[in-house]
Structures are given as C-alpha cells and as structure tokens.
C-alpha cells in the first residue's frame, strides 16, 4: 500500500517536473490571484448577478418572490419620483464633476511645489477626507442653519438675507454639492499633483525660452499633458457623483432627500424603495439601470479618448 502511494507520488512529481517553466509559472500565477478573484466574485460579481436577477421579481421583503419579468422596468417609466431623482442625480453630477475638476486642479497648481508651507496646505486640503462623512454632513448642516449658520450670515452680509441653504428646494442641492466638493477636493488635488509631477520641467523651460508666459504654458503644456490624469479624475468623479456612497451619505445626513424631493438622488431613492418600503425588486431594477447609465457614461469617455490613449502615448 505504502509502496504504491510512494510510486504514484514519484510519477506525479515526474509529470510535474516535465511541465514547461512558462506553464508552471502560469499555474502558480493563477493560484496566487485565485483568492482575490474568488473574493471579487463572491462579494462583487455574484451580488451584481443576483441584483440583476432580483430586478425581474416582485419582492415583498419577507421572503415572497413573484416573477414579473420586465415589470419593474416598466414601472420606472410611470414613476414620477424615479424621473425626478434621475434628473436630480444628473444635475448633481453636472455641477459636482466640473467643480471637483477645477478645484482639484487649482489646489494642485497652488501647492505643487515642495515647501513646508505647501506640505502643510496639502495636509489641510486633504484633511476632510479623514473625517467621517456623517460628521462632514452634520458640520455643513450646522453651517447652513437659517439665521444662525455661517452660510446664511455670510449671505446676509452680502445683502441676501433669509436664505435657507438646506430648506429651499432651489438651493439645497447646490449646498450638498459644495459639501461634496469640499470633502473630495483634497483627494483629487493629490491625484493632480501626481500628474503635474510627471510633466518634465524641460518643457516649461523650453516654453519660457520661447517667450511663453504662465498662461500659455498652462494651456499648451500643463493641460494637454494632464490628459491621462484628467481622464481618470473625470471618470472616477462621475461615478462617485452618480452612484457614490459619499453623495448618498451627505444627502442622508443633511436633508433626507428633502425639501420636496429636491435632493433625492437616484441612489437615495433606491435605498428608500429597498429599506423603507421593502420593494427590493424595484430597487434592484433601478440599481441595474444606474449601472447601465454609468457604463454608458464610461464608454462615452473611453470612446472620446480612444480607450484612454492620448496622442503622445
């Protein structure tokens, strides 16, 4: 028995030893990435597949499932709150993404050079990132309180008295955008600093020798060479604005979707449907559509930049 086992082991080792090195390396590589792949599949891939499947069911939240096919998607077309929250989401992204881009890049340009002062400023601009989003929301809520908050007082000093930054439907969303940008601008600043540091100094020196000013250097050297960074920032900030946890948390803490649904983002509405009303199937359908929208936006970005490749690559 023992001799037979030993014989089989010897034969197996001999077979393994005959595998070409490339194949052995490939097997080893696959085995090393297997745990990560499994983790991604179990915690991301599988839930996504299940969510898509769930969108074809009417789910009561208590174990009851009824197949409705595309019923939940049809329901969306007649749901005014779905359209309203989709519009709010797109307006939010349309305001937040350019603001994040501009503030992130501006801050990076301001503090890109190495000095103690700039290091301290970088830390300060990045500081909101290390604070809990709930705390950020509460701080902005306090800053916005009518009559007492910093923002209404500042507005009053400019002659705009009686402004309600979170209670007026025409302003509340913009206030949340400000909080969102304030929270994330330090993160994008760091990314832009990385991009700026990749631009060779010689380009600027050559431009200066050719008589180019700061403005010309920015438009003709900095911005074009920042394209890969800009591409990354625009994609990530769009995804964050449309479906990110940051926007959800801020709305949840600051307005709960009010006043009058003016800050009800699609992701907040999905949450409401799932966890307040128990309509998990309908929520899954909206979440699926949100993913499709995000994929479409990303594809447009990729198409516009030929797959993220730029002329000088």
């Amino acid at each position, binding site marked *: 028995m023992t001799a037979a086992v030993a014989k089989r082991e010897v034969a197996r080792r001999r077979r393994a030893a005959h595998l070409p090195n490339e194949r052995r390396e490939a097997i080893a590589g696959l*085995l090393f990435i297997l745990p990560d792949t499994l983790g991604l599949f179990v915690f991301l891939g599988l839930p996504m597949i299940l969510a898509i499947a769930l969108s074809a069911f009417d789910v*009561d*939240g*208590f*174990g009851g499932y009824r197949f409705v096919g595309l019923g939940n998607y049809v329901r969306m077309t007649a749901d005014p709150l779905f359209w309203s929250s989709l519009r709010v989401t797109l307006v939010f992204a349309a305001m937040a993404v350019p603001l994040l881009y501009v503030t992130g890049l501006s801050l990076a340009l301001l503090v890109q050079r190495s000095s103690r002062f700039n290091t301290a400023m970088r830390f300060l601009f990045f500081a909101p990132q290390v604070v809990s989003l709930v705390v950020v929301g509460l701080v902005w*809520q306090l800053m916005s309180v009518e009559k*007492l908050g910093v923002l209404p007082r500042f507005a009053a000093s400019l002659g705009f008295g009686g402004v309600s930054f979170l209670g007026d*439907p025409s302003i509340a969303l913009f206030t949340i955008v400000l909080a969102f940008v304030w929270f994330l601008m330090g993160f994008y600043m760091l990314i832009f600093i990385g991009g700026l540091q990749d631009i060779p100094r010689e380009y600027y020196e050559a431009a200066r020798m050719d008589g180019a000013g700061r403005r010309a250097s920015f438009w003709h050297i900095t911005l074009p060479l920042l394209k890969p960074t800009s591409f990354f920032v625009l994609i990530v900030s769009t995804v964050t604005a449309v479906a990110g946890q940051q926007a959800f948390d801020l709305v949840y803490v600051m307005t709960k979707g009010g*006043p009058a649904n003016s800050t009800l983002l699609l992701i907040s509405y999905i949450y409401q449907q799932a966890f307040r009303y*128990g309509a998990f199937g309908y929520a899954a359908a909206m979440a699926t559509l949100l993913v499709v929208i995000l994929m479409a936006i990303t594809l447009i970005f990729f198409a516009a930049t030929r797959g993220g490749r730029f002329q000088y690559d």
Partner: protein
Amino acid sequence: MTNELTGRPWSRRSFLKAGAGLGAVGLAGLPLAAARAESAAMNFMQFIGPGGPAKTQSDWIVQLVDAWNSAHDEKVSLEYVPDSEYIGGTKLSSSFASGAGPDVFLISPGDFLRYYNGGVLADLSPFIEPAARADFPETVIANRMVDGKIFGVPMEVEPMAFYYSVKAFEDAGLSEKDVPKTWDELLEIGKKLTTSDRYGVLFETAPGYYQNFTWYPFMWQGGGEFQDASGKSTFDSPATVSALKLWQDAVASGAAPRQALGGGGSDIVANLGSGYCAIQNMGIWGISDMANNAPDFKYGVFRLPVPTGGKYVTVGGGWAFVANARGRNPEAAGRFIAWALASMSPDSIQRVVDWCTVAKSDMPPRDSALKAGAAAFDKGELGVFTREIHPGTRAEPRLPPEVYKSISDAIQGAMLGGVDAAEAARIASQQIDGFLATYKGAPLL
C-alpha cells in the same frame, strides 16, 4: 521564511496546503456555529438597550428581560440596534429580507401594515386574557388589530402638543394666558415671537414618517380623512388643504424655519432648549428629554390650537411589542409579550407605569396603568398631558408605505416646495386612489 512546525522552508505547495487546511477547519466550524444559533435564546431586537442613549429606558428593558429569564425556560436576549439603524436604517428590514428576522421586535403604527401584510406578525390574542384585553382602550389598540386579533401590544401612547419657552414669551411681553388657541393665533403669536436669531414656531421640516405623524392632527381638526367609507381617497378635502396651508403659511411668513436643528423636529433640546425657536410642535416624550438634558430650562405645554369651527384632536403614536410569526418560537414570543405588557398581574401593570413615568414621559396604553400611576401622571407637565392633551388623542394612522409617501410629498411640496396646497392635495389624492385600487392587505386605519 521557514515553517516553524516542521523546520523546513515554506514552499509554494506547503503554503497552499496550509491555506486549504485552514479553509477546511473554517468550513467544518460552520455547522457548529449554526447549531449554536439554533439553540440560542429568542432574539429581541430594539433600539432601547442595553447601552442605549437613555439610561432609564435601557435599565427598564434590561430589568424586564432579566425578570423573564429568571422565571422562564425560554430565554430572551436583547439585541440593541441604534435608532438610526433600526426602522430608519437597514437593520430590521434586511434581517427579515434575509430570512433572519428577530423573534420579538418593536414597530410603530406607521410600519404596522408593511409587516402585517408581509405575514411576519404573530397573533398575540391567545396569550392575552380578556380582562387585559379590555384594559387597552379601543383608540389605543385598534391600529394594532386586524379582524379582531391583536398583532401588537403597545407600550406607550405619545400624544403631540406644543411646548413653549417661558423666557421667549416674557421677552415678547406674553404670558401663559396668551398661548394660542386657534390656528390664526398660532401664526400671529409665532410672528410676534420671531426675532433675528429665533423662530416663533417650529414644525418638523424633514420628510419622513415623523413629519407625517405630526401633521395628521391638523388635517383631522378640520374634519379631514384619508378615505371615505367606500375606500376612496378624500385627501383633497378642504380640511386637508387648510392643514397643508397652515404649515405653508407658517414658513412663508417667516415664523417657522425650513430646517430644524440637531435631530430635527423631534429634538426639543436642540431646538426649543437652544433658543432656536419659541414654540415647538413636539410629543410627550419632550418632558423627559428636557428633564434629562436641559433641566433648568423653563417651558410650558399647551394643546394643539384648532382651526375656526374645528374640533380639538391630537395624534398619539407609540411603539408596540410584536412577535415574529416565522421566528424560532412564536408561541413563547407571544407569551413573553403578554407577560411583559398585557397581563393583569401587578408586575405587568407597574412595568407600564414605570416605562411611562420613570424611563420616559408617556401616557400609558392601559387604563389600569393610568390608575396605578395616577399620582405620577398628574404631576407637572405630564399632568397637563393627562388632563388637557391626552383626552383628545386619536391613534396614529396605519398606512402602507406608498400612501405615506404620497402624503409626505404633499406636505413637503406645500410647506417647502412652494406648491399650491390644493394642487399638492389633489396630486396626493390621485396617487392614493391609484394605489388603493390594487391594494390587497389589511384595512387602512
């Protein structure tokens, strides 16, 4: 790197073998964990304790469960979930969605239909003796009943009223006798009390169950109802429009804010206590909140003003113990609930008195408890509730989430969105009718 057990260097193969071994051990442990869960005590999920934000309430629920566990074989274990994560968050709903709902839990009338229609509420009637059943006034127990069966035992009644700051009144040259008795007076005094850094009157501003709850009595006072006897929506009635307009006028006149401080309209310390407003629409629990957090603040309480030609009525909310019909032991859970809050034993009655007077400041849901704690219920501001406010209490309506949302949108639209009150009521009424046409569940109350 060497393997310390064998002394040989770690090879890729031995590393993978060790990983597989650990995985196998982990998997082998799963049945053990499952078996342990099977034999565990009944799980009582709630937002009170142990370790909840209010020590008196936390102590009450811990003592309640200790007393049960010391005398019964079926044990109960408390699972504390912070309020924001309980019904307002994902914890309770996701536990049911995943088939792991608690055995005993708390719900308010606002959520009753969702859980009842979901088939997870156990009938508690068999465990409640007739005398105890009769001890709950119809106005308190009706919205926890379907077809004559009891599906929830209320632990409190929380009527809404107005609280006012004595100092703000004095600063404006007003006194207790000036408290508003009509809606017109409320708006007028609210404006009089409004200053550059203070609002005259505060209603809840954030959308949600609580805002709806606080608005209902204003609709009822003018004779408004959600639906008529045939089940058709009557939400677009003149009484509803007037109630929407009252809140709209309060905000438009500048007497009421568009945003509340702290935890919102139910947070009396952050709003009235901080001087942000002079009058606050608030429930009875404000008494204990003020006693615990702003004991030196001087305030008074008055009942909701009425519209011209209207009738006084307020709304009474409150949480109820319910048992999971699909739980591990619904029968034991039912016995536990009846023993805790709905038995004629002196302990059960006293427990209700303690909850409403020591742990919190509430009206009791039982006549016997009101009698047993008469002295406490007659003291101070609680006495004002007992004598003047609570007699006009109507139970919080139980509505499906879809109807609640339509009403919420109407309140938000009129109050803060600048939508004409009649138009907001009309849209909501249409939506409610649309929903009711296909609704199949327990009746709305």
